[in-house]
């Protein structure tokens, strides 16, 4: 059933750690979609799974099959490139669709189009700090 008998110990352990890390990140992202209250907050949650969640499991697959075949097998990179390009496109379209639908319904939580004028920019942005945290 499992090919692990043929794997060297370091490859098996590295694969195990990477697989667990990727799956855990994906699960955390999924829990995030349950916990966040609004659509625009929920948009952030699946990117956990599609960025490093996918990346870790793809790396695990690369390590596992490279060690099995005793030559570098990197075709998993294709999936990684594809997911990193396509997921932002989907999320952007969805965010624009959500914005459009909310504006049609006059939702007060959604910024009006006037926010896109140059002069209102300073009012919308928080004031400066030293090292801004990301995320």
């Amino acid at each position, binding site marked *: 059933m499992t090919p692990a008998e043929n794997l060297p110990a370091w490859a098996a352990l590295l694969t195990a750690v990477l697989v667990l890390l990727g799956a855990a990140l994906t699960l955390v992202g999924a829990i995030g979609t349950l916990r966040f209250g609004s659509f*625009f907050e929920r948009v*952030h949650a699946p990117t956990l799974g599609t960025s490093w969640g996918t990346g870790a499991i793809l790396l695990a697959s690369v390590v596992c099959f490279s060690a099995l075949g005793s030559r570098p097998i990197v075709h998993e*990179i294709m999936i990684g490139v594809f997911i990193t390009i396509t997921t932002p496109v989907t999320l952007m379209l969805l965010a624009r669709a959500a914005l459009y639908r909310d504006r049609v319904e006059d939702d007060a939580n959604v910024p009006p189009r006037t926010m896109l004028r140059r002069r209102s920019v300073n009012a919308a*942005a928080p004031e400066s700090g030293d090292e801004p945290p990301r995320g």
Partner: protein
Amino acid sequence: MSRALPYPLLTAALLLMWLLLTSFSTGQLLVGAAVAIGASHAMAALQPSKPRLRRWQLLPKLLGIVVLDILQSNIDVARIIIGGDRRDRVAGFVAIPLDLRDKTGLALLSCIVTSTPGTAWVEYAPDTGVLLIHVLDLVEGADWVSLIKNRYEALLMEIFE
């Protein structure tokens, strides 16, 4: 570029993809090259606007910054989700005036912003150049405008403009 190879980068990428999906042998190299050259001529027949790369040497630097930033914000967002919501966590929209006008650069910036957990590209007005992003955690004192402008936009403008 030339008449024989209208899109050298696209041709190279297609050939690499063909070799990754099949195997690295001389026969596959020839078939893949034929497919890639044919496809790049088909692309030229569609007459898309041609993106210009001014300083492609900076692309690996951008890639490194983005990968590390995404890792960092993965940790931050995971902490928000697992650790439960703080009372003072405020999510909201931020408007950012952009100076970048190159279409390819904007597309790249949108992919970077959206694939980073915690920030999402929402709307862009081409006439004023103002970008609207949604931020999951508007930490007190964090300056999102200068973060996006200095960290990504400056580098993208160097590459594309």
